């Protein structure tokens, strides 16, 4: 009976979160539109189809990582180890393909590595009760070292042409990586909004103690978030290996920061319990569009960094104002 009431309360809370999320997403979208209008007045190339596809293509990898990051952040954690996880998955998959393993099993091994990296993070955080920031800071070094030691620091430059052709291909006008990330986003949205696991993530991130009392499997929920994040890191790695035709052990450097930036611009709160799949996608596109537009305007990288910083802080301020003073 008591459990029933809490669940009712939870779903009312989630409904009100939904409304707020729509408003917040509309804000991010308006930001994106303003940025697009600005750049289209500055460069005639910006709004061409080829360039828009460029922006989506360049945002795809960050978006893929950021979607996993969003789920982790919503459930109250952080995953700093995504870049090295990606690098480890990339070098193992590429080496397997290089030594003659067929593409599919090699790709499966890559995904398994991503999942395993996420699982280790999750177990240390949920079972050993260590802090997410510190655990993933540790595995950031650990996973990177695995990639470096395994390859001796050397890039693996031979990747089968059919593997590359798949990731460099297009369906209709859209590059395959963009479609893959689109599908991932839809699945993530359904998971977050239409399944119990999504509800658990919001509950655990919102108030872990309350969630535990109302019977949410807290540990399992957290572990799932890190496993998904690890899996998506390995997916992003494979996309990149397909694009570059090479796997480098230093791949994925600082990906975690771009992903956190995209999630934050999209409305995720590092306190947990709050975040949006659509918002994160828009956030990733905003970052990609800024980089692209500023390059077209021939603005140097130092100023691009400045613009990125301002956008993040502006997004946070807007967030604060729309939510009122509480």
């Amino acid at each position: 009976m008591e459990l029933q009431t809490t669940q009712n309360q939870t779903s009312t809370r989630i409904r009100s979160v939904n409304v707020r999320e729509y408003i917040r997403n509309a804000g991010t979208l308006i930001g994106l539109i303003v940025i697009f209008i600005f750049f289209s007045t500055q460069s005639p190339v910006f709004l061409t189809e080829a360039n828009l596809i460029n922006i989506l293509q360049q945002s795809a990898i960050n978006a893929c990582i950021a979607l996993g990051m969003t789920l982790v952040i919503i459930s109250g954690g952080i995953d700093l180890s995504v870049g090295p996880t990606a690098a480890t998955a990339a070098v193992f998959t590429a080496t397997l393909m290089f030594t003659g393993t067929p593409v599919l099993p090699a790709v499966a091994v890559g995904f398994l590595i991503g999942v395993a990296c996420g699982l280790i993070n999750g177990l240390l955080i949920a079972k050993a009760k260590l802090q997410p920031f510190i655990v993933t800071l540790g595995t950031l070094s650990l996973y990177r070292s695995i990639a470096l030691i395994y390859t001796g620091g050397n890039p693996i430059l031979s990747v089968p042409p059919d593997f590359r052709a798949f990731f460099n291909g297009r369906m209709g006008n859209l590059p395959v990586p963009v479609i893959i990330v689109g599908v991932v986003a839809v699945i993530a949205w359904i998971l977050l909004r239409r399944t119990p696991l999504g509800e658990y993530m919001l509950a655990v991130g919102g108030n872990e103690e309350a969630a535990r009392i109302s019977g949410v499997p807290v540990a399992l929920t957290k572990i799932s978030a890190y496993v998904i994040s690890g899996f998506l890191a390995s997916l992003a790695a494979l996309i990149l290996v397909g694009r570059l035709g090479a796997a480098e052990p230093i791949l994925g450097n600082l990906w975690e920061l771009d992903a956190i930036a995209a999630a934050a611009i999209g409305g995720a709160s590092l306190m947990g319990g709050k975040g949006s799949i659509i918002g994160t996608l828009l956030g990733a596109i905003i970052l990609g569009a800024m980089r692209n537009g500023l390059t077209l305007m021939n603005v140097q990288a130092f100023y691009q960094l400045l613009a990125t910083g301002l956008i993040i802080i502006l997004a946070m301020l807007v967030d604060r104002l729309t939510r009122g003073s509480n």
Partner: protein
Amino acid sequence: MLKNLRLLALLVIVVIGMSVPVMAQEAELPPLDSDTEPDRTEWWQLEEQFGPVPTFEEKVRVGAVAKTLINEYWRLLGEGYQNAADNFGVDVILQAAQNEADQLGQLAIAEAMLTLNFNILLVSPQSDANLIPAVDRAQELGIPVVNVNDAVISTARHYVGNVQRDNGVRAARWFIENFPDGGKVAVIEGQAGVYAAGQRTEGYTTTITTESDKFEVVASVPGNWDRQLAFDTAATILQQHPDLIGFYCNNDTMALGVVEAVKAANLLEQVAVIGTDGISDAYASILAGELRGTIDSFPVLTGEVALEVALRLLGGQALPRVVSTPQALITLDNYDRYYGEGADTRAALIEDAKMAMK
């Protein structure tokens, strides 16, 4: 007349017919190793082998993507591009990534630049692989790409840069010449897995152990191009080997860190530090008598040569795949010859090169 026309038509067909297999061959160039590629020439021989730099009726626009502007080396390279662009009356636009590890950012910049219709692109990739999609796309669009120092794109058709291995060889020979009694030396390497770092270290270690039997390389560890890390590493090595006589560092940033560690250990008299690149801080240190020398690869000159190569390619000159640029080990003794008042760096380097050929 008609006969001539027919002959001409036949000639055209034959030429086209021949060029098709040539193009197919070009697509299958072997992976580039810029140090050992046999199809190469020296920067100062371009003029005598291929004549003057072609001129163009329309304004030529050159796009350049550098590693990052945080490192002075790449700023100087950009200066060289600009010098040559002013000299030949063309436009050059230079863009660079935020730092030396922003590989995807640099790719995004290169891809955005492809939409701006440059006539030719000069790229200095962050890693051997990160710009491959942009280079492939440029080749599809028919925009020639020149890979400029120091990561090597294996599919690159044109490369301008110095022989990385030679850098280490020069450092080793300096030690052999200046320390006739030999002794213990250490190497502070750049980022693991970077072509230049590997080649420089290999050149040094092989030369100092084969051309003399009095030296022992007691440590060869990565400093990741980083001053702080190099400082710490050098301090540790000095503790372990207080009788060390010298460090060879894969770049100047690390060498300056090592110099600080040597100073802190009060060993400046005994331990000689040799750096690489020739940045202005390194020269300040050399003139102050702290850093013993640096293997300068003349970034400004390299930039000038790279832009010249770009224009020659655009004008249809069939240059070799690799055009190598100069380097020289500069110490307090020969500083004036290259950088002293009224010194002509170009002339001095050409003289060096001609000496070396004899």
